[in-house]
Each structure stands twice: as structure tokens, then as C-alpha cells.
């Protein structure tokens, strides 16, 4: 595609447009800032007959996810979208969707979870449900949001996976900023996602099935094992989908993205839009001869342990940036996961954690630069003085 084909879209519009091209059978959604524009834009597509979707304008997010479970079990390709407190309200059913193995796709516009109430970006909402059994994809910009929403359909519905997928973008930073987007051909999207077909749909009245039975001591454990195995299987099945995506659209994705990491001595690990700021600072530092790099996990669940280890194997000092506080007193969720992964590998870079950007606190190049200065100091002294840091917080 050439430049002239760029369409000005926000992250929310990008999701709505992807949903229009996907044309799901059912969408059940409830508006919440900063996800609202997804529901508004998609409702317009419905109102103008541009999609065949049956929309359920539910009275809460709890009912949104409940209706999604019903619709997906019935045999319909089903989507919803939410943010923050909305995700928290549907929490109970988020787990049920995953354990019922329903391939629901849910764009999430990351927003700080109350309290205190705040409508701006951080990752506390989706990080809180990292153990819910959903696949988590984090996007850097609106282009990725658009592409990952389409990609997520095939990942969720892959026969070896059958798990719901969250496609996360940064609230306001990505969801409300306008970018020039390259959009795919409608027909290509249709061909890529294919027909939705699940085994044993509830609406097959000639072959009745019972969904959601009481599962006691005798079977619950094995079902949880199977769910865990599905997440493991996703590690090998997702690359098949990525390959097909590349073949169809000419866009190459992986579980992770690396930026100038091959020869890097110091590196930052960061997800979503902050990675863009980090790349800018890396370029500046590289001009000064500092061997700085970036590692950006794109798919966070399943956790791409081997890819992360391989990417970090030559780095001497690493700083992991977490846009959420897990209150473990040990650091953020991305940090503790990465540390645990490195333990087994025997690769032990000097590692530290920075919690940043909570409640939409801006993260500037100067902040990122400070982290690289710290890393250079750690590299020189061979010591991590403060493993847990709060970047951009008034102390």
C-alpha cells in the first residue's frame, strides 16, 4: 500500500472498523470511557446496515460478558469491548468464558482501575486478570490494534486453542489519538477469518448438550489441566496463525518485538505505547554510542518464555517497566514473570523494575532516559541498588 491510502483513525475507530470487517454474529457491549467510541462507532455500522451483527445493548458489563458466553456457546461469533471497572465488573464471567473454552474476542482499552476513580491509562485492569485464562495481546499503536483485532479472531478460534482473547491498547494515548492507518481489503479479512464453527453448539437442538455443569472434586482438576494445556498449545499454534496473517496481509508479527537489541548491553522491557517513546530514546542513545535496546512483549499470555530469554541472552542490565502495581512489594507483574523465566535459563542479567504511568501519568523521553542512565550506572558498578523504582512519581 502507498501513503495516499492512509486513513485517519483513532485506536477506538480502528477497533470498530476491524469489527465491521469481521462482522461478528453477535456483539454485546456496554459503554465505558475510554472504550466508548468503539461501541458508538460500531453501533453506527449496525444502524446503517453496514454489518449483519445482532447487537445486544446490555445494561452492564457483567451482562455483556454473560450474554457473550450465551451467544458464543449457542454457536455465534461473538465480540465485546471494555475498560477498567467494566472489566472488573465482568470479572466472574471472564473466568467462565475461558473455562467454557469460548473463543470470544474482547478489545480492552487499558484504563486505571478504581480507586480512586481515574479514567486514564494504566494496565491495572488487564494485568489483574492475567490469570483468568484469556490470551492477552498488547498493542503499541492504532495500526497494531486494528491488525491484532483481526488476528485475534483466528487465534481464539484455532482448534488447538479455543480460548478467548483480549486485545489491549492504551487508553486515550492510543484509543483517542489519530494516526494514519493502512486498512485491509474487506474480502481479504473475510477470507482470513473464515467461517465460525464450533463443535456442539447449544442451538443444535437435535444433538442436545449441557453447558456449565457442576464440576466437583472428581473432574474439576482435569478440566483445569486441559485449560492449562490449551494455553501451552497456543504457544505452538499462534505461530501458524501469524504465518497465515503474513501470507495474507504481508505483515510479520511475533510474540515479541525487539528494537536494536542484538548487540545491546542495556535494555528496557516495556509494553504498549510506551515502547514508541523507548524507541525514540534508544535512537538518541545509539547516536551517542550507548548500546541501548528495547524488548517489547506483544503477547503476554501465553507467556513467551523462550523468546524472551533468547532476546535477553546477551544483555547485561535490564529494566522492566510495569504500568501497573501488583502490591506484592516485590514489583510489577511483567517484572516478576520475566525474573522467574530467567531463573531457570541460567541467564541472569542485572535486573530492576520501574512502575510508571499509573492513572495516565505521562511518560516522557526524559523519564526513559533516566532509566537508561540508571542502567549504565548498574552496568558500571555491577550492582542493582534499588530493584523496585517508581518512575515519574513525586516522592
Amino acid at each position, binding site marked *: 500500500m502507498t501513503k495516499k491510502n492512509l486513513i485517519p483513525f483513532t485506536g477506538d475507530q480502528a477497533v470498530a472498523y476491524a469489527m465491521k470487517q469481521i462482522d461478528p454474529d*453477535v456483539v454485546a457491549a456496554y459503554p465505558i470511557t475510554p472504550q466508548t467510541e468503539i461501541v458508538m462507532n460500531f453501533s453506527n455500522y449496525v444502524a446503517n446496515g453496514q454489518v449483519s451483527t445482532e447487537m445486544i445493548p446490555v445494561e452492564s458489563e457483567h451482562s455483556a460478558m*454473560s450474554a457473550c458466553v*450465551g451467544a458464543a456457546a*449457542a454457536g455465534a461469533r461473538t465480540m465485546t469491548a471494555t475498560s477498567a471497572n467494566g472489566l472488573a465488573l465482568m470479572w466472574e464471567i471472564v473466568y467462565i468464558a475461558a473455562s467454557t473454552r469460548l473463543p470470544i474476542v474482547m478489545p480492552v482499552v487499558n484504563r486505571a482501575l478504581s480507586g480512586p476513580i481515574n479514567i486514564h491509562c494504566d494496565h491495572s485492569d488487564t494485568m489483574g486478570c492475567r490469570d483468568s485464562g484469556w490470551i492477552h495481546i498488547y498493542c503499541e499503536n492504532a495500526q497494531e490494534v486494528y491488525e491484532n483485532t483481526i488476528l485475534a479472531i483466528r487465534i481464539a478460534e484455532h482448534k488447538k486453542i479455543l480460548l478467548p482473547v483480549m486485545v489491549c491498547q492504551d487508553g486515550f494515548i492510543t484509543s483517542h489519538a489519530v494516526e494514519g492507518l493502512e486498512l485491509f481489503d474487506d474480502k481479504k479479512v473475510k477470507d482470513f477469518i473464515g467461517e465460525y464453527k464450533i463443535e456442539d453448539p447449544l442451538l443444535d437442538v437435535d444433538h442436545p448438550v449441557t453447558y*456449565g455443569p457442576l464440576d466437583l472434586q472428581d473432574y474439576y482438576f482435569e478440566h483445569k489441566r486441559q485449560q492449562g494445556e490449551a494455553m501451552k498449545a497456543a504457544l505452538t499454534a499462534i505461530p501458524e496463525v501469524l504465518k497465515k496473517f503474513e501470507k495474507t496481509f504481508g505483515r510479520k508479527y511475533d510474540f515479541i518485538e525487539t528494537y536494536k537489541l542484538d548487540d545491546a548491553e542495556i535494555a528496557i522491557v516495556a509494553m504498549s505505547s510506551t515502547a514508541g517513546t523507548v524507541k525514540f530514546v534508544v535512537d538518541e542513545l545509539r547516536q551517542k554510542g550507548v548500546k541501548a535496546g528495547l524488548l517489547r512483549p506483544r503477547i503476554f499470555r501465553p507467556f513467551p518464555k523462550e523468546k524472551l530469554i533468547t532476546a535477553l541472552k546477551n544483555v547485561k542490565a535490564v529494566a522492566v517497566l510495569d504500568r501497573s502495581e501488583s502490591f506484592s512489594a516485590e514489583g510489577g507483574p511483567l517484572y516478576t514473570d520475566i525474573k522467574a523465566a530467567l531463573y531457570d535459563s541460567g541467564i541472569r542479567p542485572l535486573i530492576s523494575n520501574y512502575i510508571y504511568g499509573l492513572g495516565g501519568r505521562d511518560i516522557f523521553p526524559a523519564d526513559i532516559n533516566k532509566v537508561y542512565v540508571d542502567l549504565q550506572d548498574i552496568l558500571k558498578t555491577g550492582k542493582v541498588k534499588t530493584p523496585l523504582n517508581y518512575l515519574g512519581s513525586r516522592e
Partner: protein
Amino acid sequence: MANIKELAKQPERLSGGHRLCAGCGASIVVRQVLMGTKDPVVVGSATGCLEVATTIYPYTAWKIPFIHNAFENVAATISGVETAYRALKKKGKIKKDIKFVAFGGDGGTYDIGLQSLSGALERGHNFVYVCYQNEAYMNTGVQRSGGTPKGASTTTAPSGKASYGKPQLRKDLTAIVAAHNIPYVAQGSASHWNDLVTKAEKAFKVEGPAFLNVISMCHRGWRFPQEDTIKINKLAVETGYWPLIEVENGIWKFTYKPKERKPVVEFLKPQGRFKHLFKEENKFVLEEIQKDIDENWARLERMCEASCKVA
């Protein structure tokens, strides 16, 4: 009007061998309601006795499609199923006409599931919601609910030296649902099977949401012999404790009126949950309950008269 010989020929959709108690009202209600249509039916159920006792993995007592999601969301869940049906039917992927019914107890309907129910009713999904109202959280051991009547002793509002049981009246859920202006709302009782099956037929037939609030005995919580379920049911109706009414397109109507309403003590007396009310110091509560029933009856009569005139 239902014909008992015809009804007896209908295939069972909920098979025997489930693990509900002998004498439980819930399964009787389910079977009678499902006799209200010959079309294929998809069932949703809230968490509760009905769900846990009929679907213990790897077994199921359901011979028709069944979905359980959680406690408070059966109305939202069935709204998703019904919407999927419309979406797939429109695309020609489903050919048959299918009906949808959601079952919830009073806990899952009067209390924790009220928002989900209200939302689904307001959105106008084509489904029947059936509350099997056994007047407490029976599945977890007889805790009070918004559907528990005044004076009943439950495990979270027990009678004692300083308490005569639940001090509040139960909420009028049937009226709350009727206020959604849906096409069909009714109260039923399994003791009056003809009345209930007829109401179920109407509920399945209307376009849009329908709601049946059906009194359902729980001998464990109500404390009476298990063989007396239908007898107690009947007394609930004959005393006016559970009036058999319907609200069809806004018109309120009694579908059955006892020739003479029996005093409510005849319904209360055989039940252990009201035993303490017959002590001298609590007799005033019996009088209050009778007064509440009389007032409710008079109010219903006014509703019937007024709504007829308006229509």
C-alpha cells in the same frame, strides 16, 4: 386449557434420576412449564438447586440443550443465546423455530439477578423467564432473600428471643416485572397444573419476554413432610397467600379465585418455619400477615378493575 391426557403423552425433557429432593417443587414446576410448548426449547438456569442437582458432571438430566453460566446472570445469558439464534436464523444457518426459557430461584431472581432480568426484559428478547420461588436461598441452607415472607424463620433471619424471623415483607416481584410492560406476566402454582400449563403456553406463544413467578415448595426450608408439597401449594393459593393472576398486555386478571379465601394460618400452621409465630408473644405477627394478604388481595382486585377500564 391443557388436556391431561395430551400432556401425559408429551416426552419428558427433564429426565428422572436427577438429585433434587423427593417432594421438591422445582422439578414439578420445570416439567409443567416445559409442557407449555411442543417446539424445541433451549433452557438456561441460574446457579441454584435446580442446576446443581440436574447437571453433576459427567451426568445431565436434561434431554434438551441446557446452559448454566453463573448465579445472577441467567437472563443475560439466555438473551445472548436468543440473540445468537436470531443472528444465525437470519443468515439461514438455523432453520427450526426454537423457544428459550430461563429458570432461576428467588435468590437468583428477586435479589442478585434482578438487574440482569430487568435488562433482558427491557431489551425485549423473545424468552420466558420462570422464577421458582421457594422463598429463601435453599441451595445454601435456607438463608433469607428478598422473596422470603414476613415472619419466616431462616438461617440468616432466624426467630429467637429478640426476633420473630424476617421483619420485612417480601418484595412484589411480579408487579416489578409487570412494570416493564412486557406482553405476559403471571403467577402460578404447581398445585393448579391446568392453570400453570395454560400460562406457560401463553408465555411461550407471545412475541417478546414473558415472566412466570411460580411458588415452589421446599420442604427442607419450609419444614413440612415431603409428601405434602402439593397440599401446601394448594393452601398457598386457597388462602390468597399466592394469588393466581396474570397480566396480559397490561390487563391484570385473576385466573382463579377461591370461593372463599381460607385464613392464612391454615397455610402457615403446618410449616416449621412459621412455628414460632403461634407463640403467644408473636400472635400479633399472624394478624399482620393476614392483614397484608387482605390488603394485597384488595389491591389486586383494584388493579384488575382499573386496568380493564383503561384497556
